[in-house]
């Protein structure tokens, strides 16, 4: 007993005043994440991927008083910083480029542990050497690496619990997106469509790392669906961004990327299933329950990889379970997330490629809007009306906040459709973007059930920063020039702004420790946290 007492006294001397509870995060806790707004438990804040926080301490009245609380800088970041952290009981789990995970004390930014994979001669084609975030469940932190491994780390120490190869990086498979951890399972997708890999989506046992199932997003020649590819070898349809999950329906929603090669579809006549689509997956069976293809036979690199956002509302007097999707192709879609039924869709940014959507949500494509040898001006640009950044949805305003890119491109059709897995598709084309003073960005608030724009806040240039909505009535986002700002969620009026000196390239999040609300974002290679003094 005496020994224990001495140990406790000793511990009280060395343990800092801040105590970090480090409680585990069982699946059931993540399902109810909205009940603990101080924490940010998944990539998108909750399984619905709404990026909405119930925190109310910051309001339109006081947000002007935000000041820097702390900043963190990785020792030697190699690539873009695009991380979106997870915060659990005072500990923040961030990633650093290319595939490092670091645990920080969310009170002050102190580094608690860090883990980096050993990677050699990584193949990264058509993507940034970055990592956008982890998943946390039970006492484990899950991260996927640029060389296409999925790794489980001990949340208390960063020690590797298991490390599984998802796919062969030498073929061009590379991972920058976050895993999705649900009951007993971890799901992960990959990038690599520009390397002409065959898209896949994997599910692993959360405890052991053993693969439970794999869904190929494009068929082999001769398999069902291959009739939508002509005589070509189906390729692309990668799953490189974040997903959403409905625990009651037990369906996972995951978007797929472009067919390969990108800008010359001559050799792949047909819809090219399941590229540029949203897949609804039964995670127990490992089967696609339904799919909705946004851009059949895509030739502009408009991946449907944007994180889907789930919400419920009443349409025509009937309660509906919905998924909102602001697509890179400049249309906003509302689907029934139980059946995949198209409910409505309309452009949320300038687009010149489609007359509109038909009754089933399929685009009525205008003639001569594909890439041409000399370059064909089409809106939006190759990077799309939005790219990888996340939208937010506020159940209070019922608005969908989109970081919109208003830019066109001269799309150039390549002369060759030859490609080899693991290498750039040779001569397949590209773009000359209409950027600079010819382009701009905007934070747009859309009525979530219709897509109708309620307000916009214009930005000097198209940005690469997601939006965060809060119950305090705020929307946070940033600019490519380096501004971090807060808008009034109802009106879009600017309320606070600070210049951070370099491009923001992440999705902001908010959390609270010791009863105080903070806001996180990155700019350049620095991680910033702001709070009221």
């Amino acid at each position, binding site marked *: 007993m005496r020994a224990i007492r001495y140990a406790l006294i000793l511990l009280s001397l060395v343990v800092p005043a801040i105590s970090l509870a480090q409680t585990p995060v069982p699946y059931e806790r993540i399902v109810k994440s909205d009940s603990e707004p101080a924490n940010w438990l998944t990539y998108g804040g909750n399984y619905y991927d709404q990026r909405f926080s119930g925190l109310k301490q910051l309001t339109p009245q006081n947000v002007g008083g935000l000041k820097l609380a702390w900043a963190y800088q990785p020792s030697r970041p190699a690539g873009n910083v695009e991380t979106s952290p997870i915060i659990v009981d005072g500990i923040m789990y961030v990633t650093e480029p290319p595939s490092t995970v670091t645990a920080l004390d969310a009170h002050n930014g102190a580094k608690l542990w860090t883990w980096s994979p050993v990677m050699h001669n990584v193949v990264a084609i058509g993507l*940034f*050497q970055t990592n956008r975030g982890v998943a946390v469940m039970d006492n484990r932190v899950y991260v996927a690496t640029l060389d296409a491994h999925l790794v489980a780390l001990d949340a208390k120490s960063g020690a590797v619990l298991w490390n599984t190869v998802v796919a062969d990086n030498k073929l061009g498979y590379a991972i920058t997106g976050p895993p999705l951890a649900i009951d007993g399972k971890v799901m992960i997708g990959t990038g690599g469509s*520009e390397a002409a890999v065959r898209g896949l989506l994997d599910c692993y046992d959360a405890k052991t790392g053993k693969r439970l199932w794999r869904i190929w997003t494009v068929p082999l020649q001769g398999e069902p669906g291959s009739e939508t590819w002509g005589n070509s070898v189906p390729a692309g349809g990668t799953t490189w961004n974040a997903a959403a999950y409905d625990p009651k329906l037990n369906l996972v929603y995951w978007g797929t990327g472009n067919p390969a090669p990108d800008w010359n579809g001559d050799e792949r006549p047909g819809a090219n299933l399941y590229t540029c689509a949203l897949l609804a997956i039964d995670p127990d069976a490992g089967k696609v329950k339904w799919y909705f293809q946004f851009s059949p036979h895509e030739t502009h690199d408009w991946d449907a990889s944007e994180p889907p956002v789930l919400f419920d509302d009443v349409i025509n007097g009937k309660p509906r379970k919905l998924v909102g999707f602001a697509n890179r192709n400049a249309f906003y879609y509302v689907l029934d997330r139980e059946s995949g039924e198209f409910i409505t869709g309309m452009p949320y940014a300038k687009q010149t490629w489609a007359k509109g959507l038909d009754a089933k949500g399929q685009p009525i494509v205008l003639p001569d809007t594909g890439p041409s040898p000399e370059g064909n001006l089409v809106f939006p640009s*190759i990077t799309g009306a939005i790219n990888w950044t996340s939208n937010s949805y506020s159940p209070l305003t019922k608005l969908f906040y989109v970081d919109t890119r208003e830019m066109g491109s001269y799309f150039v059709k390549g002369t060759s459709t030859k490609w080899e897995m693991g290498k*750039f598709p040779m001569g397949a084309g*590209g773009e*000359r*973007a209409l950027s600079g003073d010819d382009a701009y960005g905007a934070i747009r608030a859309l009525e979530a059930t219709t897509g109708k724009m309620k307000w916009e806040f214009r930005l000097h*240039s198209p940005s690469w920063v997601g939006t965060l909505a809060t119950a305090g009535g705020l929307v946070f986002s940033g600019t490519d020039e380096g501004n971090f700002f807060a808008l009034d969620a109802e009106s879009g009026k600017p309320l606070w702004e600070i*210049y951070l000196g370099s491009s923001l390239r992440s999705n902001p999040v908010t959390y609270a420790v010791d009863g105080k609300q903070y806001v996180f974002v990155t700019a350049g290679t620095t991680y910033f946290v702001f709070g009221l003094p």
Partner: protein
Amino acid sequence: MSAIRPLCVAAVMLALPGLGRITLEAQVPRDPTPVVAKTSPADIAAGKVLYEATCSKCHGLDGGGSDGPSLQGVAERLGDEAVGNIIRGGIPGTGMNGFGSLSVDETGQVVGYLRTLGRTADAEVAKGDPGKGKAVYESSGCTGCHIVDGSGGGVGPELTRVGSMRGPSYLRATLLTPGAILPKEAGAMERGRFTQFLFVHVVTKDGHSFEGTRVYEDSFTIEIKDAAGKFHGFKKLDLQKLEKLPGRSVMPSFKGTLSDTQLDDLVAYLASLKGTPTP
């Protein structure tokens, strides 16, 4: 026997417009044959094909930058060999993979093509006398606003390498009608590439008027440099008027103030300013 070729690391100072000066470590083949730009029309055509297949996805079809940085003017600043080393060896820790499968000759063709990017299309050959043009330059007040090889004033753009990026027609048009043709800044990731030297007129809410060249702008702020080289910064919310006036310039026109011969000589002098690679 390992098939992996031994590599060594060389530090390269890379100054890219808009990105400032950054140090990059290029992986360089241990025993490289120095890459020299191959600039015959056939080589440039071959370099274009290689560039479009290998480089354009990240650096843009015109080399102006896309996911990767702008390459316009990179060979002029770094030299052919350094650029060739980066192409063949890559830059560790960045998105720049090495393209070791390209031969030295092919790399030279790519560098030759890079040297053509970002130049204003200009078939005109300067017909004046560069030596006399230098005298015109010095007697016409140009040195008050422009720096060449370390001498002059910093109100306007430095002209040390202007001849490697701008042809005689462009130079002549700018001397006669400054602001008529404005270049785009370099950019990366579809960003930047804003019009350079854009003339801006602002009026603050308390009625003060300012005009000058835009040097910085974001969603909340604009900074201008006036004709005296003084910087002025404004919060956009504090302005009652913000006018962007392409076609105007803080630089005076030399129409009517120089003879045709003097103009030809001045154009020839400016076209001769090619600078030297950064040491």
